[in-house]
């Protein structure tokens, strides 16, 4: 089989993954892929635990140490089976707090602390980089096997080149599907689906090789067992310490690895998926490991002395001339490596961008949270940059380490690094007394011990730590020998590192927590994490302050996107019983908003950004009361009462609003009559005066013609006024007959713009349109809708006030409705006037300039109501902005 064919197959497979991911993303976007959110996909996505280390390395491990390899799977099995203890709570907290990564979880729990997030991110990167390098190595090594079998011997430069191309491909895939949008929930349907597919491929590949080995190369189950008993690993002399220790390490790593946290917590859709995975995933692991021992034993038997047991999965089928099977097996290994790298990269990139890049960028912005421009593009850019940076790190590690040592060794070193966050996570979820000081101290100590006793020595003798230091400690201090801390030597180096790093980490964490005093925010978060099942209402993080809702809206739009942010604000306003886009700034609203933002940039950054807008915000005594145990209990009992009083508060708010409106209406009624009187008398004054002048016949001909013209114009003005009044009264009483027909939006806008007297050459008001979006037809009354457009456009022309007035029309197709925003670049309308402008005769400036009686927007509102749509003022857009929403089809 030619090597080029293998490359072709691999590329074809990669292309398939791209297509699958793309289709899944598209379907998820349209919201019609129920299977995407199925427990099966969730379970399969967890299989990124089984990396190339598992696929190739488990067999190698089995060939060296016998059954010990299985411990790596037993740990996760116990964690999954015991989901009711730990994972369930983790997932609940993850959802309730909208956690984006493991660093975010810890930072959020310990007072939304940025330094702590940075620390966890650093640990994750140090631990994951060798692991990513390991995956690259396994892919290029397996390629080298094929190159070798087709007669090309690969040198170092070939390996490096292949690793580079694989890294570039992975970066491309991850950027393409991992940073598509700054999804509020950080869900990546495309990637998860591709990974599920890869999970199936790797399982089938390993099982296929296993079946071939057991029934094709050996005589069946009985013979295989006999072969195991006859092999060099037949003797059962397992060290109990390593057996139990490895089960512990793998169990801990299963929950602490950033990539596992990503698929297990962040991508989780509902608890029932976890429940299914609690038995389905152990089953998957069982199937993955069932044939490992047979393959290892047969490999030891059949393959020549000195061949690499890590590659038996490939070399066995090749040696039996089963090239198809070997290629399938290669794809299995390829799947294992790529899926791990993709998810690990996403998880790390999220951490790096949310906890390092964005905070730095934010603090470099002098304007603070109200900066101009779209922050989303910055965050996405930061994430893309981080993805490339993580992969570059992995590639560099691969280059410098030279890919020498056995696969499994790096894997365990990496695992031990990652589990340093375990005490902090357990403390975060189960112990309200855990504090930031304790967590930081524990993490730092754990990280240091791990680096000193395991990570640095793993580079090999004399690479970083000299042999003399290994033998007699730094500066001759025997107590600090890397593999015999406190003078207790003679242990397995891995167990030694796990024992000392975990126990001292946990000890310092507890001591630090006991002897430090948490900040109020830490205590609040602690209560919310530990009591996640009881806490539904949530504690209060902010006291109300004068921060304008509009400022928050402006900031949120830049993070969440305009549509999403407006939806959040509108829903919040509706919940408070208000209409429009600006809810009252209540503590509940702030907390909800903070979580929405946390879903995009992490809790610490979201908290800081809102903090910039609410400078007076602080935690009140009342809030602190909620932290205390007694208060929490009382709150629990009175939760029903509270719900009732919330209801009353809401009703009261509605009543207050209705009352305000009624009072305003009665004032308006008086004003309305007086306005009509004024509007009628003014033109009549001119008419009377000039007709008397004409009667007196003292004027010359030119004057007479001019005065007759004035009389004519003023009567027209009167007629217009009466028409408007009648129109409005008809609309208000529902006596209007609509002539609905199908018409294209573009045509409607063209008509409206020319009727509003806007020149195509852009003199006066310049209109920016989005022609590609206007290509849509709707069923409506064209004359009436056009009347609304004309009104809004000519209003912009009259009142914009900018030196170079511009009006942008933005069209959005919402499926059932069409949304057309008209945004000008003028000064906009002040908040107190925003509710007034749709009332009759509500002209904000002098009326000569307006040329109308101030009925235009009132008529627009009535028309849109008749058309089953709406027109509203959209705050926070820079200039004055009006949003017209109209159904695409006739509802009747």
């Amino acid at each position, binding site marked *: 089989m030619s090597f080029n064919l293998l490359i072709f197959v691999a590329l074809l497979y990669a292309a398939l993954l791209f297509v699958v991911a793309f289709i899944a993303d598209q379907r998820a976007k349209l919201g019609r892929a129920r299977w995407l959110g199925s427990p099966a996909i969730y379970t399969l996505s967890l299989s990124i635990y089984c990396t190339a280390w598992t696929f190739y390395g488990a067999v190698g491990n089995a060939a060296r140490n016998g059954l010990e390899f299985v411990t790596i799977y037993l740990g996760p099995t116990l964690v999954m089976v*015991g989901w009711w203890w730990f994972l369930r709570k983790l997932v609940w907290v993850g959802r309730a707090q909208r956690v984006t990564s493991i660093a975010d979880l810890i930072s959020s729990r310990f007072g939304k602390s940025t330094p702590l997030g940075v620390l966890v991110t650093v640990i994750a990167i140090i631990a994951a980089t060798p692991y990513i390098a390991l995956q690259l190595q396994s892919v290029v090594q397996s390629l080298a096997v094929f190159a070798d079998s087709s007669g090309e011997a690969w040198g170092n430069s070939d390996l490096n080149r292949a690793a580079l191309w694989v890294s570039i491909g992975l970066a491309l895939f991850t950027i393409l599907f991992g940073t598509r949008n700054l999804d509020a929930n950080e869900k990546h349907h495309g990637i998860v689906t591709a990974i599920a597919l890869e999970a199936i491929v790797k399982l089938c590949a390993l099982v296929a090789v296993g079946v071939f080995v057991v029934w094709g190369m050996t005589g069946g189950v009985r013979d295989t067992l006999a072969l195991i008993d006859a092999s060099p690993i037949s003797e*059962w002399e*397992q060290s109990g310490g390593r*057996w139990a220790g490895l089960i512990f390490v793998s169990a801990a790593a299963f929950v602490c690895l950033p990539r596992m946290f990503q698929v297990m917590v962040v991508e989780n859709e509902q608890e029932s998926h976890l429940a*299914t995975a609690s038995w389905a995933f152990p089953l998957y692991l069982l199937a993955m490991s069932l044939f490992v021992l047979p393959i290892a034993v047969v490999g030891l038997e059949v393959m020549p002395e000195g061949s690499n047991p890590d590659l038996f999965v490939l070399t066995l089928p090749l040696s039996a001339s089963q090239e198809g099977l070997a290629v399938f097996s290669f794809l299995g290994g390829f799947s294992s490596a790529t899926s791990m790298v993709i998810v690990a990269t996403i998880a790390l990139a999220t951490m790096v961008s949310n906890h390092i890049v964005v905070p730095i960028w934010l603090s470099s912005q002098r304007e603070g949270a109200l900066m101009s421009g779209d922050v989303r593009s910055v965050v996405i850019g930061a994430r893309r940059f981080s993805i490339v940076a993580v992969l570059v790190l992995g590639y560099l590690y691969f280059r410098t380490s030279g890919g020498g040592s056995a696969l499994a060794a790096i894997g365990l070193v990496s695992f031990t690094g990652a589990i340093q966050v375990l005490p902090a996570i357990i403390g975060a979820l189960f112990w309200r007394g855990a504090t930031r000081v304790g967590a930081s101290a524990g993490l730092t100590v754990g990280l240091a011990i791990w680096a000193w006793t395991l990570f640095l020595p793993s580079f090999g003798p004399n690479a970083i730590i000299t042999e003399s230091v290994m033998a007699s400690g730094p500066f001759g201090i025997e107590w600090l020998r890397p593999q015999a801390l406190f003078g207790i030597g003679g242990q397995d180096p891995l167990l030694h590192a796990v024992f000392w790093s975990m126990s001292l980490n946990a000890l310092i964490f507890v001591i630090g927590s006991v002897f430090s005093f948490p900040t109020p925010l830490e205590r609040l978060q602690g209560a919310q994490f530990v009591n996640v099942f009881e806490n539904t209402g949530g504690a209060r993080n902010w006291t109300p302050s004068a921060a304008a809702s509009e400022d928050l809206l402006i900031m949120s739009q830049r993070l969440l996107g305009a549509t999403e942010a407006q939806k959040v604000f509108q829903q919040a306003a509706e919940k408070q019983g208000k209409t429009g886009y600006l809810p009252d700034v209540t503590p509940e609203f702030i907390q909800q908003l903070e979580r929405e933002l946390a879903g995009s940039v992490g809790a610490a950054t979201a908290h800081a950004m809102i903090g910039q807008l609410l400078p007076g915000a602080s935690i009140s005594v009342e809030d602190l009361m909620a932290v205390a145990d007694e208060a929490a209990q009382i709150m629990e009992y009175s939760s029903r009462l509270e719900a009732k009083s919330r209801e009353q508060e809401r009703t009261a708010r509605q009543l207050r609003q209705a009352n305000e409106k009624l009072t305003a209406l009665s004032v308006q009624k008086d004003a309305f009559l007086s306005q009509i009187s004024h509007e009628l008398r003014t033109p009549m004054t001119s008419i009377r005066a000039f007709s008397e002048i004409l009667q007196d016949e003292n004027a010359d001909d030119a004057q007479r013609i001019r005065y007759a013209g004035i009389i004519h114009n003023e009567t027209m003005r009167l007629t217009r006024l009466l028409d408007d009044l009648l129109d409005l009264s008809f609309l208000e009483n529902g006596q209007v007959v609509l002539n609905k027909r199908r018409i294209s939006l573009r045509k409607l806008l063209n008509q409206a713009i020319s009727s509003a007297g806007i020149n195509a050459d852009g003199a006066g008001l310049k209109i920016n349109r989005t022609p590609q979006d206007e290509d849509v037809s709707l069923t409506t009354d064209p004359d009436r809708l056009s009347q609304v457009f004309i009104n809004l456009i000519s209003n912009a022309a009259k009142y914009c006030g900018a030196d170079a007035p511009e009006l942008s029309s933005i069209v959005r197709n919402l499926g059932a409705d069409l949304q057309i925003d008209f945004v000008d670049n003028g000064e906009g309308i002040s908040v107190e006037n925003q509710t007034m402008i749709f009332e009759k005769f509500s002209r904000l400036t002098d009326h000569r300039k307006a040329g109308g009686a101030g009925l235009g927007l009132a008529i627009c509102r009535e028309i849109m109501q008749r058309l089953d749509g709406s027109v509203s003022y959209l705050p926070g857009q820079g200039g004055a902005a009006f949003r017209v929403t109209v159904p695409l089809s006739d509802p009747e």
Partner: protein
Amino acid sequence: MADKKAPIFLARKSYQRRRLRDASRVLPIAGGIAFMIPLMWHGDDVTERGTSDAMMFVFGVWIVLVLLAALLVRPTREEDEGPTGGEKEQDVL
């Protein structure tokens, strides 16, 4: 898990459910202990019990754990909603 007669006391259902939840909490502990059993095979009869026996034992415990976990999942999940509200299943007890 199906009751033949209509339950007289509604509390019985939830009582049973709670005990099953307890059982599912015990499961990982029992599993962990079971996985340690082969460690005690050291000593006199090393030749009797080899790696293949340990493998059979471990995989045996493993499959039992999977089955028990699958059995316990459904009944324990009744009345619980996921953090998103989740879907509610029909009562199968």
